[in-house]
C-alpha cells in the first residue's frame, strides 16, 4: 500500500498549498471603499496600517467562510483517491487477506486520520506563521487609550489558535472519513466528492458554530460503521 500513498504525495503538496491560498484570500479588512483579503492587506497595506489588526483577527477571518466548505474537502482528497485506487485495482484483496478484515479496516481508518490531519495542520500552520510574521499580537495602542483594555497574552493567543486548529483538524478528519466511507460504497471519486461538497455546503452553518462535539460524533459513527461496510464490500467483491 505504501506505493499508493507515495503516489499521492503530489496531491498532499497541492492540497497544503490550496489550504494556505484559500485562507489568504478570505476577506479581512475594510478600509474606505476597498475590501482587502488577508493577502491583500499584507501586500498592499503598510506596516503601520496593519498594526491595528492582530494575529488572532487574521486567523479568525482567514479560517472562515469558504475555508469551512473547501478545506475539509481538500484534506479528504488524498485518502479518498487512495481508497478508490485500492478498491478499483483490487490491491485491497491482498492487503485484506494478509491483515484480516478488521485490522485492514482499522488501518484505513488510521490512514484517514493521519492524511487529513497532515494536510489541514500543515496548511493552517503555514498560514498561522504567515499571520504571525505580518501582524502584531496586540493592536498598536500608543495613540489611543481605552479604559479597561487588556493586552492579549501569549498564552491566551496560543490557546485560541490551538483550539481553532484542533476543531478544524477534527472537522477535516470527520469529512475525510465520510468521503472514504462513500468511496467504499460507490467507487466514483467525482461523484463522491461532489456529494460531500454539496452536503458540506448545506450543513456549513452547523459546522461554523465551532462545536467540537459535532465532528466527534461524526467520527464516532463513521468509525463504528467502517467495519460492517468493509465486511459488506468484501462480500460483494
Amino acid at each position, binding site marked *: 500500500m505504501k506505493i499508493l500513498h507515495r503516489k499521492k504525495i503530489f496531491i498532499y503538496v497541492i492540497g497544503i498549498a490550496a489550504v494556505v491560498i484559500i485562507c489568504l484570500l478570505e476577506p479581512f479588512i475594510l478600509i*474606505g*471603499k*476597498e*475590501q482587502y483579503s488577508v493577502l491583500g492587506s499584507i501586500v498592499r497595506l503598510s506596516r503601520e496600517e496593519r498594526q491595528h489588526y492582530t494575529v488572532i483577527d487574521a486567523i479568525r477571518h482567514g479560517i472562515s467562510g*469558504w475555508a469551512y466548505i473547501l478545506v475539509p474537502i481538500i484534506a479528504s482528497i488524498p485518502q479518498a483517491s487512495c481508497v478508490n485506487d485500492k478498491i478499483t485495482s483490487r490491491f485491497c484483496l491482498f492487503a485484506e487477506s494478509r491483515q484480516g478484515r478488521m485490522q485492514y479496516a482499522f488501518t484505513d481508518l488510521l490512514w484517514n486520520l493521519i492524511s487529513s490531519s497532515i494536510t489541514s495542520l500543515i496548511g493552517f500552520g503555514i498560514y498561522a506563521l504567515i499571520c504571525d510574521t505580518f501582524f502584531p499580537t496586540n493592536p498598536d495602542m500608543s495613540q489611543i487609550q481605552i479604559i479597561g483594555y487588556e493586552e492579549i497574552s501569549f498564552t491566551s493567543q496560543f490557546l485560541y489558535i490551538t483550539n481553532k486548529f484542533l476543531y478544524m483538524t477534527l472537522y477535516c478528519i470527520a469529512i475525510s472519513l465520510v468521503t472514504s466511507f462513500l468511496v467504499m460504497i*460507490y467507487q466514483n471519486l*467525482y461523484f463522491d466528492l*461532489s456529494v460531500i*461538497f*454539496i452536503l458540506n455546503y448545506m450543513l456549513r452553518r452547523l459546522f461554523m458554530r465551532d462545536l467540537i462535539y459535532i465532528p466527534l460524533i461524526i467520527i464516532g459513527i463513521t468509525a463504528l460503521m467502517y467495519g460492517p461496510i468493509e465486511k459488506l464490500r468484501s462480500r460483494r467483491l
Partner: protein
Amino acid sequence: MKISMKNVFLVAISEYRKWLLTPRIIMVLAMMVPIREIVILPIIRASQYMNQPINVLEPCIATMNSNIITLLVPLVFIVLISSFPTVDGNMFFYIGRMGRSSWIIGEIMSDIMYNVTYVAILTAMILIQVAPYSFLADGWSIVATDYDRVSGNSTGTMSNLLAPNLFYQMAPYKAFALSLVLLLLWLMVCTLFFQMGSVYGRKILFFIILVVQIAAGCALSALDNRLMWFFPVCHSFLKPHYQAYFRKYVFSPYLSVLILATIQGVLIILIYRKAKTVNLDTIGGPQQ
C-alpha cells in the same frame, strides 16, 4: 462508406444518453454552490435591501460575465465530457457498421447536445432560484443600476456583478442573448479541442493546454490587459467587449462570435480528417 443521417443521429443519441446518465452529472449541482454564493445571493440580498424586484435574466447575465464562474464553468464541463467519446467493447462494432464518417459527425453532434443541455441546466437552476424575487421585461432593474449608489455600498457589490459596460450599452434581452451565444460557442471550442485530444491520442496534453489557456485568459481579463484578446476564453464574456460609458466597442462581440466559429470550423476539419485514419485503440483513455 457514405454519411447516413440516421446513423449520425443514432450515434449522437446513444452518446448523449450515456452522458446524461453518467453519475458525474451531479457535478452540475456542485457547480451551483459557487454560482449561488458569488452571484445569486448577493443579487437577492441587494434586491431585499432595496425592496425592489430584479430582472430574472440579470443573475444569468452576471453569471456568464463573472471571471471566477467563467473559469469554473468550462473546467466542470471538461471533467463531465472527459470520458467521451466512450471507448467500450461496443464501439468497434458500431463504428464498423456505421462507418467512421457517420461516427465522428455523430460525436460532434452529441457535443452540441451536451453543450446545450449543460447551459440549459445551469440557466434553469439560476432562474428557479431567483424567480420569486424577479420580473421579466426588457429593462434593467433599479437594483442593478442604482444599488451601489443607494446603499453606499463601499465594496461595489453590484457593479462587480453587473458592470455599467452592460447596462449602459444594451437592454437585458440583447445582453442575455449575446452572453449565451458566446458561452455556448466557447464551450463548443473546449469540447472540440478536447475531442481533438482524444482522436490524436493526447488527451492529457490537450487538457493541460486548455486549462492553462483558461487560467491565463481569466487572469489577463481580471487585470484588464489588452493581451487577453489573444486567448479564446476572453471572447466568451461580453463585459470586456464594451466601454463603460461611451457607446464604443473595445472589441466587437460579433467579431468574437466569428473568431470562435472559425476556431470551431478548423477544429471540426482537423477532427474529421484525423478520425478517418486514426487507430481506434488509441482513442480516449480509461473509463472511470
